[in-house]
């Protein structure tokens, strides 16, 4: 392997990326999936984590363009140069450009986007080209073979030279949702995502993904991607305690609110906003409220719902006012009885988690439409 002159690398382990535009060769969901999978190739063997942004600046800006595209290295039409990426740093640093004159595919025909993206992100993270013809960082494109693991030991040695190894895996970059974490070996067995007894502490949307909180861990799942990433909460937010109670996202503000006991934090990406944690009563709750069971924000209504035992409060963002007194959950959400563990909104339904059950609640029909297992969202 080789690094760039001066060994530029990222000084943080949680990086943001943004897909600035999309190739017409593939469905946007397929581009999202290929990019996520390509980043996971590197996060599976390092402490690095990647969070997608859909607006503003990001560490790794990903774009498709033909010929001249505002940097000093124009593309050359079909064939030849397929893509290029810049070493870690500000501005162009870390960015990856893909030649729109290629035919981007998710198969072995044409130019496989996942394979090329995984190579380019090696550059975005600080690796230059390798002379090892079997390595991912070898400069010449080889016909993509999905049965062959992309990362070669040479690549792993190179990237771990820069960032160290992952706290979660033994250099295995299979797409399992279960990554054994040796540092947790003292803890009871890691939660098994496919267990029929699985329950969650909290669930929230998070920048286009769904985040499932359990003890010290989170699963990150993109609705369009079959597999899930399994991480330590502390790998994103080191100051956040394990075993959170509730979480919800206000996507229009790019903020996610996370509750534990009488306190709550507001995060944006991997950053806890200054001034947090704050106490629950600052939200308008009476001081005897000691914890929130679940919460979600309905962006269309502009209301946030907080669930405690068999009741809920709602906060109207527009009038900036909290309900004077709580209402029974079953009155507003028929079919949802008693305490819930977690809730989130996806498209036009709510998903309530209660013990080992998950209730899909249609917001238009105002009724439960499906009874699901808690691991419904995972490839079990």
């Amino acid at each position, binding site marked *: 392997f080789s690094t760039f002159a001066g060994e530029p690398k990222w000084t943080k382990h949680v990086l943001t990326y943004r897909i600035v535009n999309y190739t017409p060769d593939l469905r946007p969901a397929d581009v999202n999936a290929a990019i996520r999978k390509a980043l996971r190739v590197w996060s599976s063997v390092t402490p690095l984590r990647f969070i997608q942004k859909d607006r503003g600046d990001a560490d790794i800006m990903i774009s498709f363009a033909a010929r001249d595209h505002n940097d000093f290295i124009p593309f050359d039409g079909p064939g030849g140069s*397929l893509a290029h990426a810049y070493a870690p740093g500000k501005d162009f640093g870390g960015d990856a450009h893909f030649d729109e004159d290629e035919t981007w595919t998710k198969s072995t025909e044409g130019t496989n986007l996942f394979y090329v993206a995984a190579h380019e992100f090696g550059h975005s993270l600080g690796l*230059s080209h390798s*002379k090892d013809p079997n390595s991912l960082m070898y400069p*010449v*494109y080889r016909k993509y073979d999905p049965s062959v693991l992309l990362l070669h030991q040479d690549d792993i040695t190179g990237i771990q030279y820069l960032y160290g190894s992952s706290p979660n895996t033994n250099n295995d970059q299979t797409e399992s949702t279960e990554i054994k974490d040796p540092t947790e070996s003292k803890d009871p067995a890691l939660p098994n995502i496919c267990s029929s007894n699985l329950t969650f502490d909290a669930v929230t949307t998070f920048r286009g993904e769904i985040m499932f909180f359990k003890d010290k861990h989170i699963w990150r799942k993109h609705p369009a991607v079959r597999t899930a990433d399994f991480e330590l909460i502390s790998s994103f937010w080191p100051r956040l305690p394990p075993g959170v109670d509730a979480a919800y996202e206000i996507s229009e503000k790019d903020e996610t609110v996370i509750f534990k006991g009488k306190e709550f934090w507001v995060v944006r990406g991997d950053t806890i906003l200054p001034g947090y944690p704050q106490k629950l009563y600052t939200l308008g709750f009476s001081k005897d409220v000691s914890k929130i069971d679940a919460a979600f924000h309905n962006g269309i209504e502009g209301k946030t719902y907080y669930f405690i035992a068999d009741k809920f409060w709602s906060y109207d963002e527009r009038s900036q006012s909290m309900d004077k007194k709580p209402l029974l959950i079953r009155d507003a959400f028929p079919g949802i009885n008693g305490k819930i563990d977690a809730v989130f909104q996806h498209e036009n339904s709510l998903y309530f988690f209660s013990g080992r059950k998950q209730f899909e609640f249609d917001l238009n029909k105002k009724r439960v439409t499906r009874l699901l297992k808690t691991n419904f969202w995972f490839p079990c």
Partner: protein
Amino acid sequence: FPANTRQTKEEGMQLIQKYLENYYGFKKDGESFVWKSNNAMTQKLKEMQEFFGLEVTGKLDSGTLDLVQKRRCGFPDVAG
């Protein structure tokens, strides 16, 4: 050389020159290209053949010509 062989040879020359400019930091210094064992282009060609594990001849042999036509990453192989 017969015309078509000469043309092929010139095309190969342009191809390898472009490749070495793009990925090996070769800068054409204006001199008309002559195969001299010590000139800049030959040195860069040897550097490229060494990187790819080809026989280091400094000449545009078929293995080298075949490789420069393959699709690849647009980032240079040597620090630019």
